[in-house]
Structures are given as structure tokens and as C-alpha cells.
């Protein structure tokens, strides 16, 4: 079923994104800075022949950026015709998470990450935060933020 997820980590926290929303995962190569782009957009890269924004999830979630290393990956997600790349610390796993095991986010989880969460799942003792891709890609609040 559509219970498959790609897992990646950002600052020691594991996140999951529905695999049907993920086009592919790649190595991060040179990201070209775009002048006047939103703060958390590192820039653009080529992916499968198209120019794709590279969103730094560390920055998006309010953390400090770190240099790209051997484990850094670009998770390219697709939604409503848009392709956007998410820069994460590591991305490798592909798991099945039955929908019954996903619980709505707790009240306490507010702040920047809270808004992008669809739910939380626990697999083998590990907590996985399931992300809402549409919210992640949303640019409306960006515009509001800038003004």
C-alpha cells in the first residue's frame, strides 16, 4: 500500500516522507546560490535535467548549517507539479509504516517543526517524524515571513 516511507536524518532526528512523494535521492553536488532567495533555500541544482531548488532542512527547522559531507543527501520530492530538493544529513532507509502506527503530533511539539508534521511513528524503539510535504513546500508563509 502507500505505507512506504523514505527516512532521513536532520540533526539526529529521523524524519519520514511518503515514498510516492519522493522522486529520488542523490548526492549533493555544487549548489548554486540564488540572489534574494528565501533564507533556508541554499540555491539551485540540476536534477534529472531540471533546475531544482535546494532547501536546507537544517536551516528550515531553525538549526545551524553544516558543511556537506559524505553522508549528506538531496531528497527530491515532488508535489503538484513541483520538484524540490531537500538537503538532509543522511538518507538511506526505506521502510513500511502501517498507517495505524502513526499518531498525531503531540501538543507539545510546536515551533517550526510542528507545522510540517503529519504524525509520529515509533519503529523498533526509534521515533520517526512523518512530514507533510505540501506544507514543507508551501511558499505562502514565506512571503508573509519576508514582509
Amino acid at each position, binding site marked *: 500500500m502507500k505505507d512506504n516511507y523514505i527516512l532521513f536524518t536532520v540533526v539526529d532526528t529521523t524524519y519520514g516522507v511518503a515514498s510516492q512523494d519522493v522522486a529520488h535521492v542523490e*548526492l549533493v553536488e555544487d549548489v548554486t546560490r540564488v540572489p534574494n*532567495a528565501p533564507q533556508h*533555500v541554499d540555491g539551485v*541544482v540540476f536534477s534529472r535535467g531540471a*533546475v531544482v531548488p535546494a532547501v536546507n532542512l537544517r536551516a528550515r527547522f531553525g538549526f545551524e548549517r553544516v558543511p556537506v*559531507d559524505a553522508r549528506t543527501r538531496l531528497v527530491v520530492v515532488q508535489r503538484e507539479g513541483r*520538484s524540490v530538493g531537500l538537503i538532509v544529513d543522511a538518507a538511506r532507509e526505506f521502510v513500511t509504516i502501517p498507517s495505524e502506527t502513526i499518531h498525531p503530533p503531540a501538543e507539545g511539539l510546536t515551533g517550526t517543526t510542528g507545522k510540517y508534521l503529519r504524525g509520529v511513528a515509533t519503529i523498533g524503539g526509534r521515533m520517526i517524524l512523518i512530514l507533510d510535504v505540501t506544507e514543507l513546500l508551501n511558499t505562502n508563509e514565506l512571503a508573509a515571513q519576508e514582509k
Partner: protein
Amino acid sequence: MASPEQGADDFLAGFIDDYYAECDEHLTTIRRLLSDANPAAARGMPAGTIEELFRAFHSIKGLSGMVELRDAELLAHHMESYLRQLRARETVLSSQGLDALIGGTSLLERVIAAHREGTSSPVIAPAIEALAIVSVPDLTGRPGTERETSIEQPLGTAWSVVFTPSAALAARGVTVDRVRTRLTEIGRITGAAPRVDDAGGITFEFVVESVQDASVFESWANDGIVSTQRAAHSPEIAGHAAEPATGGSALTSSHFVRVDLGRLDELMRMIGDLVITRARLGESLAKIEARVPAVEWRTVQENSHSMERQLRDLREGVMRVRLVRIGEIFERMPFVVRDLARESGRGVELQITGQETEIDKYLVERMMDPVLHLVRNAVSHGIEPAAARRASGKDETGLLTLSAASVGDLVTIEVADDGRGVDVDAVRKRARAIGIAVDEGPLEGRELLDILCAPGFSTRDTADRAAGRGVGMAVVRNAVQELGGVLTLDTVRGQGTRFLIELPLTLAITDAIIASVGGQIFAVPQSSVREVIDVPAESVRALENHEIMPYRGGVLPLLRLASVFGLIARPGRTLHVFVIGSGASAVGVAVDRIHTQREIVVRTMTDPLIRSEGITGATDLGDGRVVLILDLLRTARLASEASAAQALRSGA
């Protein structure tokens, strides 16, 4: 006064480009014919093919003689002689003979290329030797009017078609050449001869075999063409053999025009400008909609939309003119495969499909080397030696397939082999050795390709000549990406490997000047730049809250791109400035360095997250990195609006 010989030299020098172009056409034909040739076929090489090859080498010989390229002339002469012997059935085509033809053709290409590039010509003796071995001793060169009448199955009904030329018909474009072309389109010409009628007029009689019905021929009556069906056993027209069954050479006087690619590019640029102007017109019209009576507005709108549609069609039409057969790339491969297979001691069969798929001429030139590299890779690293193949139950001869197809907006090129597949474990080990973190799980698709293309990666000795000078997968992928395409890899251990290249059918290409600011590279479309000048830094003056620079006796507002983009400019005594716009709105935009001017393929940047005023798109200069394309006029306008607004705010 110049000697006659010198005058002749100057005269010839003016035709050298024609020489190269015409030889190129002949060589393309030769490659096509040879790549289809199969010496094992029961009847040997078809008479039509031998004839076409003969003519092609004969033409190259004559032309080379005219421009005094002795090596090319001599080599072509030997090729022609061998083909004359084949034509006269003094010998038949063997595998060795085909090799000699193929080798000779490659060498001929290199000799001509060497002349073009001004490098030293390769030695031709070995090729001539190879041809001599398969030829029979040449008797005195007989003046050739030998023709072979091919005995082929009749194709439908035989018609006798008589064409009477006249000045009036010629004025309408109905000439004997046109008539002949029409006939080849509807059937096969088995005879053609001129005749003198009783009144002393000249007519042409063709015998055509066709499955078309009488109505086709009747419709031509107004063009001076009279057709009658022939009885089953009518006498043949004396003297003339069947036209080559392979569709003849494209060199007859022609429905074809040779076009300079530069002119096509110019046309495309003009169309691009038209598109922009029409868009601006659309915007202006939208603004005045409120003031125009509804009925008239509708008409205006309709016309505007029609224009948009027509421009789109025009653009597509011009783009189609640039399309050529992908066979131009594919037909060089049999030569490469034969050489490589022999060198590496493998048996390889090459199957080609989709040669008629059309792609943009620009793409053909850029894809030649990448495809060559993939083919070399497949033969040298993919296909195993015969013993290994036998051991794993495969056919001793490896199979390499090259195919092309057009699917919607894309052209796909596939290079596949049934060899050993990529050794993923070795790749993983190597990746870790050069510092890329890879997990234990399956390594495939994009991730595998990324690693193969990573800098520093190569599982073979770079001294391995057969791997193509250690060029590397990265170069292949970059070339594909630079054109807006995608390279994918599928491989199964023990079964084989498949590379798929997908390219957009149409490209937006433009000339751009590459410059850098604050350490970042940008591309500026040439059409937007009036001039590029150097300005001493100290001649810049500050005026209120902007800067001005001297220009042609006056001044020009100066904008520093670094500050617009929030970058740190490299300090220097000279500013490199693009002069943009004209008249009152002219502006100078300063950058750190101006690098070079080149063609770029324009890629769109549509996502809202990266839409930035003044950035009109992106391009790849060949290393896989995104380079932004700037609209300096817009950037300048925005900057001046911003500073005007700021001046207002600070109450200046």
C-alpha cells in the same frame, strides 16, 4: 603578375569549404551503406549498393584531385578500383574485403580531417595494401560504361511515362528531375532515355513499375506527362539500367538546399525576439482593454492569439529544419566496434535500430563522443571474453544494441549490452575508498550512477586505451545534462547493462557572455549587451546615492552587480562593465571578471522558491553546476527603483 599556377591555387582555396562539405555528404552515404553491408548474405552486396559506393568514392577522388589533396585522391582511387571490380563481378565481397573498405573509409576521413585541421596526414599505405590484397590484378583501366542490369522482381504494373519538357513547364518547376523524383516516390524506375520525336523535339521516356493506379498518372497530364500501361512483355528501353534501388544520391540538382547553421540560429533568435514582442503587445493590450469597445476588443484578442499560435508554429518549423538523422552517429559505430572487438579479443555483434529518428543537428555534434564512450565501455568492460560467456551459458558472441526513438518531446538513445553488468560490490568498495559513504543495501539507478560519475572514481587503470583515454562517465553525464537531458543506468550482475539517454527534442540556445562576480559565475545573453568596456575604478564618481562612470564623452549610471546580489566584489583597479540598454536608459553594470563568450542551452527556473527578479533562467556550462542567466536590464531597473524609493524614504 601572378603565375597561372598561383592564380589556380587562390582559385581553389575559395572552394575548400565546398570540398569539405561535399566530401562529408559522400562519406555519410558511404558509412550508411557500409554499416548495412553483410558479406555473408547469399547474393553478396546488392548491385545498387556497389554502384552508389563506387560513385561516392569516384566523386571524392575527383574532388580531391581538384583541390590537390593527393593522399585522399589516391586512397579514393584505390577504393573506387576495388568497387569497380566488385561491380564487374571480377571478385566478390568477403569479410576481409569489407574490412578493407571500412578501414579505408576511416582513413580517408582522417586524411581529410587532417587537412582541415592543418595537422599531418596519416599514412595511407596500409589501407592501400589491404585493398590490394582483396583485389584481383588490375587490367588496363577500361573506360567504364559497364552497367549491371539487376534482375529484380517486378513491382506492380509497368508504365511507360513520356515527359515533354518546355520553357513554360520549367517556369512552373516541372523539370525532368522533378518528374523523375515523382516517379521514384510512386514506384521504381527501370529505364530512362531521351528521345527525339519526328518534329525534332526532345522528350524523355521512363519505364516505371508501380502499384499505384491510373488516377495518379492521369493527374499529371497537365504537366506534360503522358502515361500508358505497358504490356507484360514489352521490350526494354535500350541502354539504361535501373536507377539505384537504394533511393539514389541526394546530390542531384535538388530539392535540397544546403543551409548554414549560423543562419538558422539567427532565424531562431529573430523568432525569439518576435515572441517577446508579442508578449509585450499582449500585456499592453490587456492594459487598454477597458477603453476599447467590446466588439473590437474581441477582434484584437483573436488576432493576438492567432499571432501567438502562428509564432509557435513558425518556431517549430524552423526547429525542424535543424533536424537530422541520428544515423549520422550510429553509422560510425560498426567501425569502432569492429576495431575494439578485435583489439580486445571479444566477439561482439552490433544491432542498430531507429537510425531514422531525427534529432537537432546541434545534439548530433554534442552526442557523438558520449555515445562513442558508452559503446567503447560496453565492448571493453561490459562484454566478457568468449570463454567466460560460454561458462555462464551465454552465446559466445556478445550483443550490443544501439537504439533511438522519439517519444513525445524527447529523443531517447539507448546503449545496451548483454555482458557482465556492473560489479556493485566493487563499486561500493571503491566509493568508500575515495570517501563516499554508501550503505550495505542494494546500490542501483541514480545512486549507482552518481557514484560512477563522482570525481576520482574509476575501477580501471586510466592507462587502458580501449576505455577511451580514461575519459570517464562524468563527462558523458555532463554532456547529456548540458543539453537538458537525463542519463540513466540499469544493470543486472551477470546479465548486462543499459544506458539510456533522454534528450529534449528542441532546444533554446543563445549566445552568452560568461562573467563572474563575488566568486560566482553568471551568464549574460549577448543580445542584451551593447558593449563591454573596462573602466578605471578611480574614474567612478558618487552622485547622491548612486554612482556614475565616464562613457563616450558623457556619463552613465553605474551599478555594481556585487552589491545588488549581496556578494563581495573582488577589489581591483579596473572595473569590467557591461553597457546595457540605450539612450536615456543606458546603464553600466560592473562585474569582477569577464571570461568568455559561448553558446548556452537555456533551462527554465520555474519553482516559486527560486524565482528571482533579474534571473531569467539557468544553464550548464559543462560541469553539472547551475549557472544563472541574468537579465541585466531588469536588474538595473529594479535597482534604480529601489534606490529611488530609498531616497524618498530618507527624505532626500
